[in-house]
């Protein structure tokens, strides 16, 4: 037993100290590739049961949800006409001003659709493993979005055929975001006492209203740029806290992605022309 404990401690120490390209990381990546087919097979076997559970779970709420979605669809259709017009106008103005912005979605990125192979393995992590990796062009810090384009997280460790994705609900996740309506900027981060996420560091003078769309800020300072391009939808504010002892507003955020039922994602890989 002592030998196994020592080996575990040695693995921990070496893994912790070496870089992403180190020997143990490479070995782990190879091991993950070997395990990949087993995970895919297990997922395929489990999928019908998951679908059945989801179908029965959804029965009770479907009718109400359908009515709400129809009403929302009508409103969105009307907004879309206006949006298309604004988009064209924005492109014209940018061209006239010779405006040079950062990378934008989806023009400067290719989306790699993939399934989630491994959900968070414990209650400690807000991370998942996806089925694309280095061989598909994925690098660490590639943004990850849902099938509908909403922000999910960012890749951390990348293996040959799989990658670990840190979700935006993870304790160590920080994302610069802005209120698309008012322009108020802040940091999206995990809320320490609970499992929710908040928009922090918003100056008290800024305005953030409940229900406003929050998107990634995609900042650029000299040669430094945010790993998230501007404009990826993140969530909506559901409550605003402001106290005298804290210099900023803290806004509770409802993410657009339902992380509990997320089965597939898209990893955004920068096109070589825009790098």
């Amino acid at each position, binding site marked *: 037993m002592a030998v196994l404990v020592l080996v575990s401690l040695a693995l921990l*120490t070496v893994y912790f100290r070496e870089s992403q390209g180190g020997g143990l990381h490479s070995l782990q990546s190879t*091991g993950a590739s070997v395990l990949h087919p087993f995970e895919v097979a297990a997922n395929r076997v*489990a999928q019908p049961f998951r679908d059945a559970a989801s179908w029965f779970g959804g029965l009770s709420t479907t009718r109400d949800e359908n009515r709400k979605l129809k009403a929302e669809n009508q409103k969105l259709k009307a907004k879309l006409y206006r949006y298309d017009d604004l988009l064209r106008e924005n492109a014209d103005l940018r061209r006239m001003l010779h405006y040079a912005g950062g990378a934008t979605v989806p023009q400067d990125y290719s989306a790699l659709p993939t399934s989630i192979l491994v959900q968070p393995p414990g209650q400690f992590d807000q991370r998942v493993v996806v089925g694309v990796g280095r061989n598909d062009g994925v690098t660490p810090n590639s943004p990850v979005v849902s099938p509908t384009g909403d922000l999910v997280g960012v890749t951390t460790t990348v293996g040959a055929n*799989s990658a670990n994705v840190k979700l935006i609900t993870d304790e160590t996740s920080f994302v610069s975001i802005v209120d698309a309506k008012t322009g108020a900027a802040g940091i999206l981060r995990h809320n320490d006492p609970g499992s929710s996420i908040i928009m922090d560091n918003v100056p008290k003078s800024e305005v953030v209203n409940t229900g406003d769309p929050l998107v990634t800020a995609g900042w650029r300072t000299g040669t430094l740029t945010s790993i998230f391009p501007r404009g990826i939808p993140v969530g909506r504010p559901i409550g605003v806290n402001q106290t005298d002892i804290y210099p900023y507003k803290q806004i509770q955020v409802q993410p657009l992605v339902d992380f509990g039922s997320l089965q597939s994602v898209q990893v955004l890989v920068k096109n070589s022309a825009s790098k």
Partner: protein
Amino acid sequence: MIDGLKAGAIVFVAAILEVSVFSDVRILGGMPDLLLVTVVAVALLRGSVTGACVGFFAGLVVDTATLETLGLSSLLLTLLGYWVGRYGETTGRDRTHAPFLSVAVVTFLYTLGALALRFVLDEPAPARHVLLETLFQGIGLNLLLTWPVYAVVRRLLPPRPLVTRGEGAPALG
């Protein structure tokens, strides 16, 4: 040898199911841990050395599949496999409540151990969330898994006949 391979195969299947299927299951905020229950079952039936070995192997498979810090799960599961194995070899053998008691205690200790280790390694360790919101549900779900998992593992790895002290020694005089 065959026994060891069988134990390894059982734990490997449990590890794959844990990371691919069971990690997706959330009931009342808690998560069942099939792998932990399987390691406990194998350790109870095969003793401390096998318990430590399967614990190490299980941790290695999980850490590899999830691309998490290598060695973290191995360390905890090795210690817990050994401890449960010792319990099985001594006071726990043939007691009906042994698997349930072991699973409850091991789930609690594994959670505490993982929190402490992650805190030391500066990885996310949401103690309040884990201890107050998910731990007891997790223990309950693991206890629900215990009977079927223990029954399957017991069928695949039938208990060995107990060898009492002095048995098999040549008669003197």
